[in-house]
């Protein structure tokens, strides 16, 4: 009988010990979640800042590239235009008198 009582006592003690272990773990888990929730805003802000900063850098690079590309294109377009202008000038010189005569005809006839 005494042995049985001792056994129950031991089991009860261990049961209390086990309950304490679980309670401690639960408290620690709550603490972990609490900390995570506190940290969440700064994680959000950090991710936002970092990503945006990368995008800003990329946009600046794009703008720089665009300016360079536009400059190159302008040089190409201008060179083509200059060539076309030469052609225009040649035709205009050739047809100049005809054009003047056409204006005079329109006024005098």
């Amino acid at each position, binding site marked *: 009988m005494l042995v049985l009582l001792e056994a129950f006592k031991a089991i009860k003690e*261990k049961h209390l010990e086990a309950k304490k*272990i679980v309670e401690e*773990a639960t408290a620690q888990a709550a603490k972990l979640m609490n900390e995570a929730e506190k940290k969440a805003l700064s994680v959000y802000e950090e991710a936002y*800042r970092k990503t945006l900063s990368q*995008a800003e850098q990329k946009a600046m690079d794009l703008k720089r590239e665009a300016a360079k590309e536009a400059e190159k294109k302008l040089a190409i377009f201008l060179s083509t235009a200059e060539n076309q202008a030469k052609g225009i000038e040649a*035709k205009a010189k050739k047809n100049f008198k005809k054009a003047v005569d056409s204006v005079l005809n329109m006024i*005098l006839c």
Partner: protein
Amino acid sequence: MESTRVITEMILDEAKRSAEGILQEAEKSAEDLLEKQKQRGVQKANEAAKILLSEAELNKLNSIANSKIKANWVILSKKETWIDNVLNEAKTVLKIMTKTKKYLPILEKLITDAGVILGGKELEVLLNPQDSALPLRLDNIAKKITEKTGFETKLKLSEQKLEVIGGAIVRIANCKVIMDNTFDDILRRGEKDLRFEIAKILFF
């Protein structure tokens, strides 16, 4: 005694496993929460970045379009210069022509046409000082206008002088109605069509 030890060990083991599970689950939830927040931050930033990048892309397209416009402008301004040259040359030729014998019948025709358009009757002719000195046959011109309009027409040279290359303004006497047949006004009236015609002749 042995069985008691086994039972108590089982209780403790179970409690430890349970505690470990609780902690693992909490750690995972915390990690998930932080990861979720991180993704939210990235997503939000990406939305803002999208606008930035599309602006940059738009700038690029604008810059290229502006380059094209500048290049086209070179050609257009060249063409415009040539068209202006033709019109200026035509004015110079007209000025020279007003000093020749060919001019008198042309001026008479311009006066006749203007008089017919106004419907004849009492008309005044306005000229520049040089043309006012020409031997214009106003009676003949009036006769032609009378024939064409069916109304007895009288022409009188106005004392008011014009500052024009040549041609005439004809005015109904004592009235504000005029017909401007000066070279200057004919050119001005027809300039839009003329520029188009000149361009066709010059560049095609």
